[in-house]
């Protein structure tokens, strides 16, 4: 049983890991721009970035198919130029999970950046430090705990991703079948022991993550 649970567990960690990384880079970049610069359409961009949090994952999955399916806007170009497709691959699952997890990083990072007193950045400017230097030496170090807390939530969310992943990557054992899909299969097939085991593993990982992110959100300075 452990062996057959190991395959979806490792795949889940791989998919959730890459998806979280993708969501982190994108989320921090967008959050910083929205927290620090005013421009027309800012509120609309914020709403669009938050959308994956409230939309049904199947709807997101459908949008993704429209984009990256073989006849999709990006998918067709990818297929014709490079002969690759993201449909029914673990990379496709990464993309689906990243989009679902993105708002959690984005929201936490935006709140974290907004909580950094602008005066520190002003002080750093009068001290001659470049804007990049200010981001890496002042703003991010003061915001990273909030960003990390959001990232951990995003990882937990990516681990549990079901709907969008199923639509885009399918449910192929050993290739795209993640934990949550394996739980569904085990229950459908009446393998209660397997289902129990997978559920307990998933629950433990998620509790550990929530506990850790709760600690990080407590203010320090």
């Amino acid at each position: 049983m452990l062996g057959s649970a190991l395959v979806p567990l490792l795949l889940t960690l791989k998919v959730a890991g890459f998806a979280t990384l993708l969501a982190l880079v994108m989320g921090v970049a967008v959050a910083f721009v929205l927290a620090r610069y005013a421009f027309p359409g800012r509120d609309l961009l914020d709403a669009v970035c938050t959308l994956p949090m409230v939309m049904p994952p199947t709807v997101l999955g459908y949008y993704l198919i429209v984009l990256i399916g073989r006849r999709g806007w990006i998918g067709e170009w990818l297929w014709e130029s490079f002969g690759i497709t993201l449909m029914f691959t673990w990379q496709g699952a990464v993309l689906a999970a990243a989009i679902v997890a993105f708002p959690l990083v984005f929201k936490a990072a935006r709140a974290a950046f907004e909580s950094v007193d602008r005066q520190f950045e002003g002080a750093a400017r009068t001290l001659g430090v470049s804007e990049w230097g200010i981001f890496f030496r002042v703003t991010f170090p003061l915001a990273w705990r909030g960003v990390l807390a959001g990232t951990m939530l995003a990882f937990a969310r990516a681990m549990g991703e079901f709907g969008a992943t199923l639509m885009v990557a399918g449910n192929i054992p050993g290739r795209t079948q993640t934990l949550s899909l394996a739980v569904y299969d085990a229950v459908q097939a009446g393998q209660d022991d397997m289902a129990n085991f997978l559920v307990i593993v998933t629950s433990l990982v998620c509790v550990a993550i929530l506990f850790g992110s709760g600690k990080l959100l407590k203010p320090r300075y």
Partner: protein
Amino acid sequence: MKIRVDIRKTLRARDRAFTLEASFVAEDDRVVVFGPSGSGKSVTIQCIAGLITPDEGIIQVGERVLFDSKAGIDLPPQLRRVGYVFQDFALFPHLNVEENVGFSLRRGARGALDDTQKRVVHDLLRLFDLESLSRNLPRQLSGGQRQRVALARALITQPDILLLDEPLSALDPLLRGRVRAELVALQDRFQVPMIVITHDPADVEALAETILIYRHGQVARRVRLSELEPDGSGVRGERVNRVLSEAYANGGA
């Protein structure tokens, strides 16, 4: 050094608007900006530092033009060579005293100091009586120590001018007398012109060579104390107090 400021800036917050129209020339090395809160003192020095961009006008420190809307000049704060000490000091809370003071010695994304830079920092820390605290974080310091860190951090850049936004208001009243004397000594030692904001007449008396009295977003009056006391006679405190009360009597604050 001659400082020339002639700027306009309108700030809006919801239904209220505030217009600053500050115009003055100051040649003394210790300029005190005096006026009630909300009269535009802080906005003025933030414009000089480049943290706020005026709508129009000109800002000149010595021979250097920092801002000139007509000529399209607007130096970023990084290039203005202006030292700024914030009212609550704005020390970086995640960096220790040494890292705060040495912050400007590295200007890119990496902040770690090399041995030469550390020596420069420690020479300055010794001067400010902070060397034993070099590993402490700002929250572990007293108000007076924080202020010395903020001053050292600003002075290490060897600025052309030092701007201080109510430098004494965050301090214990018992400490203020000593700190006023220290500021005068510091100005002598570093030969750096200072603009000091305050609404405490005692600060004006101790620090000012030129007084700029602000009211409703304008420089209502400029007084050079050297012109007020041409023969050096009279009690300085009384004369300063008379100037300040006259300014307030004319039209009220």
